[in-house]
């Protein structure tokens, strides 16, 4: 069942569209692309169903981050291990992807990550796959890519795949979620393509 059409909306899989996405990725500064309504509807249904049963655990080092994480759901585990996905992403970013490292994250009120003083050696392409509905930017919770100043802001949006090539001095953080978010949470898969 590891056909690419099992995972990705067929609209994205036409040769000319894949080429166009690749070109857009190369042209954007920083190199990046966002694919909305990216996963097949049936996969999203499965994932949303699984997320309802996820066991969330708090992750907290106050000077670095505060948020919740859970084990990858069965479908997300298969997604990250899929050779078809790795092959498609390799074409999109013009770089051989051998591994997808990902964490399932949940950010609610008073959760955040901050940038580190020491910038780690760059290791690949940052990706996010988002499962958040009806989020407002003014609540925070978005991912900000910074190189001296903010270069890209990724807003929480359901079934959106984002790929960002972080050049040498670029870092990202998830903006503090303020009290206006009330009980809402941003849930997404975040990781790196290696």
């Amino acid at each position, binding site marked *: 069942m590891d056909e690419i059409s099992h995972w990705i909306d067929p609209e994205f899989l036409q040769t000319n569209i894949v080429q166009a996405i690749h070109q857009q990725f190369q042209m954007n500064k920083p190199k990046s692309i966002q694919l909305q309504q990216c996963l097949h509807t049936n996969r999203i249904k499965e994932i949303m169903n699984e997320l309802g049963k996820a066991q969330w655990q708090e992750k907290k*080092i*106050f*000077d*670095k981050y505060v948020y919740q994480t859970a084990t990858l759901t069965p479908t997300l585990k298969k997604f990250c291990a899929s050779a078809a996905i790795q092959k498609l992403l390799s074409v999109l970013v013009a770089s051989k992807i051998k591994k997808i490292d990902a964490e399932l994250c949940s950010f609610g009120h*008073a959760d*955040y*990550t*901050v*940038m580190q003083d020491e910038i780690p050696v760059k290791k690949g392409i940052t990706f996010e796959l988002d499962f958040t509905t009806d989020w407002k930017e*003014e609540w925070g919770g978005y991912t*900000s890519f*910074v190189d001296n100043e903010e270069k890209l802001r990724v807003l929480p949006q359901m079934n959106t795949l984002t790929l960002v090539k972080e050049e040498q001095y670029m870092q990202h*953080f998830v*903006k*503090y979620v*303020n*009290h*206006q978010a009330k009980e809402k949470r941003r849930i997404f898969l975040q990781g790196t393509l290696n």
Partner: protein
Amino acid sequence: MQNEWVNKKYQESKVFSQEYNQSKPFSHIVVKDFLLQEKAKAIAEALQQEHFTEKEADLFKFKQTKDIDGTKNNILQEFYGFFSSPKFLEYIEQITGVKNLKSIDMSGFIYSDTDYLLCHDDCLEDRKIAYIYNLSKNFTETDGGTLQFFSVREKHPVKIAKSIVPTFNTLILFTVTRESFHQVQEITSNKKRLTLAGWFHG
């Protein structure tokens, strides 16, 4: 000059030097009614007339003035002069036990609804003592805006050990170290948290 500014009961630094060094989770002190009442009122009024600029990063969101050193307002100029005077630096040295303080910086801050400052230690260059002089009124715990100190385990902040609700005319001092982790809790009401804050450098 101290007499013109500081509440009479605090003219002697000995009053709180012991308390400063024994406080937890790190050396600090909360000095209520720090200045003479009329001075505090005049400073609060003047500060609200200053120009504040929105500042935002991963670690914070608030409004800040330029360094008060450059203000055109008389009372703020005088207060800056007093706070940076050799005599006052000596007074701070006596309270904190930290020697050779040489200079200060000072900015005004306004934290409004959803503004915050996340957990950090303040360590940078020659910062020795951090201070926050609070000028906002009527804050309660439900408004947010408390200054929170963290206890540390294996060099990382692990727990909020103390929360200080902002009260008018209160000065807070603490020694800047690799373990002086603190934050300003998010404001969750329409109240404004007004402070003058900065560092004593050495």
